[in-house]
């Protein structure tokens, strides 16, 4: 068989040439007239990647710096606990939960890959709030769904980039934008429970 390998060389060459010719077919047009996803490994403009560094703080320090008593989840799946509290500037707090150890990394873009339940609380000026129907509008225009927690309407969506399930809402009383996300190992029902446990009257 090996002695006849030379008979396959022309076939190999033809296949190689065909692949080279066909290579542009893999190049999805990143800029087209209609929005399309470009997840085919094609270079497309991004933005300068900056190391976004979070400052490790205690929960108490985070509450003091944000200047508001932000809500914490009263419910967590079994075995999960708060591993990291990181502050970005003076208005965004990242709470990272896991049932495993999390590194001491402070680059948020890296450490946020380690958690399994992540809560982001952002203090927002009153004039920065969107209209009351923002959740319905996002579900209509972007996708996902609206989850009603009593008077609070949250927007829920599966992030196609990493399959996290994320629930977001705006707390006008506390002047916070709150976002709860869980990795694919956690069920959506559990995520809803975590989010609901952060709301007033839960």
């Amino acid at each position: 068989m090996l002695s006849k390998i030379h008979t396959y060389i022309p076939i190999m060459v033809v296949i190689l040439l065909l692949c080279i010719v066909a290579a542009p077919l893999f190049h999805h047009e990143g800029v087209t007239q209609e929005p399309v996803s470009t997840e085919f490994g094609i270079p497309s403009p991004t933005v300068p990647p900056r190391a976004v560094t979070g400052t490790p703080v205690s929960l108490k320090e985070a509450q003091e710096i944000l200047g508001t008593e932000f809500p914490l989840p009263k419910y967590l799946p079994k075995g999960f606990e708060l591993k990291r509290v990181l502050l970005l500037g003076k208005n965004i707090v990242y709470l990272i939960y896991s049932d495993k150890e999390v590194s001491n990394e402070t680059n948020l873009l890296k450490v946020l890959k380690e958690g399994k339940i992540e809560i982001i609380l952002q203090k927002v000026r009153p004039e920065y709030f969107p209209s009351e129907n923002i959740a319905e509008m996002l579900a209509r225009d972007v996708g996902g769904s609206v989850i009603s927690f009593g008077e609070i309407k949250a927007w829920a969506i599966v992030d196609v980039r990493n399959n996290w399930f994320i629930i977001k809402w705006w707390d006008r009383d506390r002047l916070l934008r709150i976002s709860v996300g869980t990795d694919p190992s956690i069920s959506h029902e559990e995520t809803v429970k975590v989010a609901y446990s952060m709301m007033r009257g839960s």
Partner: protein
Amino acid sequence: MKKLITIYLTISVVCMLMSILALQDSSHWYAAGWWDEQMNWEYQTLGVYGVNSVYDVYVSSQTFVAEYVAVVFPPQQGGQQDWIECGWIKGVSVVGDTQGKIMIYWGYKDETGYYSSFWKEVFEGESHWYKIYRGSNYWYVYSDGVLLKTVPLTYPGGLVQGASETSSDKNSMEGHFWNLKEKEPSGWWLWDSMYADADPPYWIQIINSHEFITGP
């Protein structure tokens, strides 16, 4: 047996090509300027405006050069980061069938993927302006007075910047941005300070707090 070998070789070559394409995607070089105020670094800016010159830059095969203004949003769960950008672009792999034309485009990334579109062809020596800002429920993307895109609002504010970007260090990246402004609740203001950074072999030079050039 012959058939099996053929299938095996085909799969191997395709995998090899896909690996090369994947590698290309991870290579980007930037020369960028950021409005250097605490409010900006805390992702609380409401918009960016800027004018830039169009250069007929050299772009090697399957790569691009883009020069744009952008609003970048804070990191999200799983280490994701979203943004909106608008500027001009030249490049085979990105512009597809435009045969190396220089086009004004917008692009954004959100939970559902990356989206972008051309608007119009532009030419060396021209200058064009871009504006991205938030309203109550949407971010608006304008160029030369025309609304190009509305993006549903999921973030209250962002980090604003102007940037020249390329996917190959063999390209040229001449750039000139000026009249850079940021938006606050009180209105539009010229950048009063700037932080700049570039990946060699490219460089950036601050002309004043709201103007910079890039190259080579």
